[in-house]
Each structure stands twice: as structure tokens, then as C-alpha cells.
């Protein structure tokens, strides 16, 4: 495995850029450029950092921001899990049955075009205002892109791997897990990336549109900060959202890619 060369000059440029933006922000914040609303639009960096700590320490209405994060993550992970399992299940059935394949293909194409938020009213009618709605939207966000990738990936599996698998005695489910899934890993990983991105956005949108009092999440927290004019806390929450995105991208998705398709020389 080759060691990746770090692009030092590129890194320095990025760091300088970030510092410059922060300085500019601070200058604008202290200059009161926007009159009375200046403090709201541009709280100082010190205020935001203080708010960051406060979010976790005091939180809102007696519950720490941790509680909100955990609630969101719980629903997100559950939705991702259900969505991914269903995507594999239906895509797997599609290799077995041609009829199922063409029907599922149609279903995926249609529902992939439907933004989850647009489904919200329908889902609320069905589920009521419960955490189930959020889970439903996360499932909806992840299942279609994931299925699309898995279906495409299965179709692209070279015939020679399938025949090798048959030859060594694989069939049915064992052929799926022994050949189709590993051979389609590069597609599956890209499906995971798209699915995760959509699920994360979908979750936050849903939480902001309607807050669940019994299961308050990150989206609701932002809304509560807004209504209480706690703009520094709002920005601090955005930072947390970005951090979560970075952790998932570089702490989970990138390592998965590195341990599979990159190591196997199967990157698309």
C-alpha cells in the first residue's frame, strides 16, 4: 500500500483561508455593520464558542444538546438500517426474478424523484406526529438511491464471477453474499454515500418542519434557538451538524472505501 503524499502547500493555503474568514467574521462582528441586528447575524467567535459549550452544558429547557443529538442519531441510524436492509433485500430478489426486477426498477425510478419532505403530510396522516415519521423519511431518503446503486452494481457483476461461484457450489443466497455483493461493492459504497447524504438532509428538514416534543432532535433545537433569538447557539449547532457530517464522511465512509474497493483495486 502506497503512502499518500500530503499536499503541504495546499494545506497551508486552506489553513490561511480559514483563518482569514474567521478574522473577517470577527471584524464584521465587532464593527456592528448591521446596526441593531448585527449581534444576531454576526455573533462574535467568542460568543459562538461560548454557545457551543453552553449547548452541551445547559442546553434548552433542561435537556442538554446531547439529548437532541442522540435522539436524531437514534432515528437516523434506525432509518438507515431499515433502508439499507430493504434495498439489499429487494435488489437481491431482483436478481432472482425478472418480473420483480422490472417492477422494482420502475418503483425505484419513480420514488427516487420524490423529495421526502413532499411526502411529509401523507406520512403524518398515516403515522401521526411520531418519531416513526422521521424514520420513514430517512428510509425513503436512503432506500431509492441505495437500491439504484445495488441494482446497477448487481447487473454489472461480470458473468465470469457468477459462473466461478456456481462452479464452486454457490447458489441462491450464498451466491448473493459470496459473489454479487462483494463484486458490486464499489456501487454499494457510492450508494451508501448518496444515501447517507440524502438521509442526513432529510432528517434535518423533517425535524425543522415539525418538532417532536417527545423525541426532540437537532432540527428542532435550531428552531428553538431561532425563536429564542439565541443566534450564537444556532451557529454553534450548525458547527455540530458539520462536525457530524465530517465524522461520518471521513470516520466511516472513507475507511469503508479504503478497506474494500481501494484495497481490492476495484474502484470505479
Amino acid at each position, binding site marked *: 500500500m502506497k503512502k499518500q503524499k500530503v499536499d503541504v502547500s495546499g494545506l497551508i493555503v486552506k489553513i490561511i483561508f480559514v483563518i482569514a474568514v474567521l478574522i473577517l467574521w470577527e471584524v464584521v462582528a465587532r464593527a456592528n455593520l448591521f446596526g441593531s441586528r448585527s449581534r444576531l447575524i454576526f455573533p462574535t467567535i467568542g460568543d459562538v464558542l461560548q454557545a457551543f459549550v453552553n449547548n452541551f452544558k445547559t442546553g434548552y429547557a433542561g435537556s442538554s444538546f446531547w439529548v437532541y443529538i442522540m435522539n436524531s442519531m437514534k432515528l437516523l441510524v434506525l432509518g438507515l438500517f431499515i433502508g439499507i436492509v430493504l434495498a439489499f433485500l429487494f435488489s437481491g430478489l431482483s436478481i432472482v426474478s425478472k418480473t420483480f426486477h422490472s417492477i422494482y426498477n420502475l418503483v425505484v425510478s419513480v420514488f427516487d424523484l420524490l423529495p421526502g419532505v413532499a411526502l411529509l403530510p401523507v406520512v403524518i396522516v398515516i403515522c401521526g406526529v411520531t418519531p416513526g415519521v422521521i424514520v420513514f423519511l430517512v428510509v425513503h431518503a436512503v432506500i431509492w438511491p441505495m437500491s439504484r446503486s445495488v441494482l446497477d452494481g448487481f447487473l454489472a457483476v461480470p458473468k*465470469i464471477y457468477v459462473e466461478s461461484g*456456481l*462452479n*464452486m*457450489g454457490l447458489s441462491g443466497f450464498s451466491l448473493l453474499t459470496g*459473489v454479487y455483493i462483494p463484486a458490486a461493492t464499489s456501487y454499494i459504497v457510492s450508494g451508501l454515500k448518496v444515501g447517507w447524504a440524502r438521509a442526513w438532509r432529510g432528517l434535518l428538514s423533517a425535524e425543522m418542519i415539525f418538532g417532536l416534543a417527545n423525541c426532540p432532535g437537532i432540527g428542532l433545537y435550531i428552531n428553538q434557538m431561532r425563536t429564542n433569538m439565541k443566534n450564537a447557539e444556532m451557529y454553534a449547532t450548525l458547527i455540530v451538524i458539520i462536525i457530524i457530517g465530517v465524522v461520518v464522511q471521513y470516520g466511516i465512509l472513507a475507511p469503508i472505501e479504503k478497506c*474494500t474497493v481501494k484495497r481490492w*483495486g*476495484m474502484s470505479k
Partner: protein
Amino acid sequence: MENREIILEINHLTKVFQDEPDVNAEPILEDLNLQLHRKEFLSILGPSGCGKTTMLRCIAGFESYEGEILVGGVSTTKPGTDRIMVFQDFNQIFPWQTVEKNIQYPLKLQGIKDKDQLKAISDEYLKKVNLDGTQKKYPHQLSGGMKQRVAIAKALAQKPKIILMDEPFAALDAMTRNKLQAELLNISRQEDCTFIFITHNIQEAIVLGDRIIVMSKKGKIKIDKQNTLARPITPASPGYGDMWTLFHDAIEE
């Protein structure tokens, strides 16, 4: 050879690719009959499109067919580990498994669970194909010739009755090809295994085969000849030239 048991018996094999149901397509193979003895190494020559690959795929169980194919006296229509196929394509071993896992995986499927035993088998067969030391490598780190060696080791390790090889060396450079021929010849002498080896290369067919078949259109067997030349066979061996010409003319016609 004649007194050895018959391992493969093909009776009245006919294969039609029925792409469209109403059109009566021409058969690709018509009433093909063939018997193969245990431990025999059969080379098959023949012009492109005469049905060699199709015949091999019928034996492997990848194609439906009319007629009868008996392996060890038992009629077979589905793929099985008693007949292992080695393809021409370098990318037939699984890229997601290391070299040794590629060899061990089918063995695990056959029920060998013990790690040390698996390791011992994969090491043994990697040695046989001169690939000791590549155990932990992934296929994309190997050359084409090395990948074919792994495929052969993987096939042998499963201890099949018959190994079916469809021009496995055709895409290799001449030097690697000669090396692999010598290795395969050596291995085939040691293993209790029967080989069917399709090739376009007459020299290869003669060097490797105990018996050489020339096939023509619709899988008609034009020549079926025991290879009586003294081994090791080189183009300088007495009788080589005559044999070469015989096969060459039969293929050209």
C-alpha cells in the same frame, strides 16, 4: 490408457442456442460423442466458432443441452465441484479476496473448517504453481500469468475429477506461455485429475496432450489421435513436424 476407467462420457450431445422461440436455429453441436479416461490430458484444437467453448460449457453445466453427459458414470446437467472451469479471462479469481483466500474459499464451502488445514492446502498448491510468497497479495497486484496460475491452483485444490480449461494461456506473452505450459504439464503428471484443454495453438496442444482432438463445424470430431511422441516434446522431437502438419491442415480445411 485404455484400461483406465472412463471418467467422462458424452453421448449424442446436441446444443442449439434458441434465441428466438419460433425460429429453428442451427445446432452449434450435433450428435457429439466422446469418452475420456481417468488422468487423460485431452487437447482440443479447432477453428474459431466450431463449438469448443460451447462443449466445455455444457460439460461444466453452464448450458442446457440435449443428449447425455456422464461424469464418473453419473449424469450431470448442473455445475459442480467435480468439474472445475479455468477460463481464458485473467479476471476470473475474485479481486476481493487475497490469493490464498481465493484458493481457500471453495474449500471452506466444501466443509473444510480448520484454519491450519486450509493454510496448508493453499500453500501446497501455490508452491505447485510457483507462486509461494504471494499468499497475502490481492489479484490486482499480480500479472496476468500469475492470475492464471492462481486460477489453476484454485482449480486443483478443489480436487475435481476434471479440470476444464478454455484457452487459459491464449492471452499470455510467448515466454510466460511456455513457462506455464511446462508447469501445467508437470502438475498434470502428478495430480490424479483429468484435463480438457482447448487451445488455438498446435504446439501447445501437442506439448500438453496425451490425446489430441481436432474439431470442425457443429462439433464434429475430425481427428482423434493418441499422442505417441516421446516426452518432453519440443518442435525438434521426431515426428513433431508430421503431427503439426496433420493438425494444421485439418484445422485449415
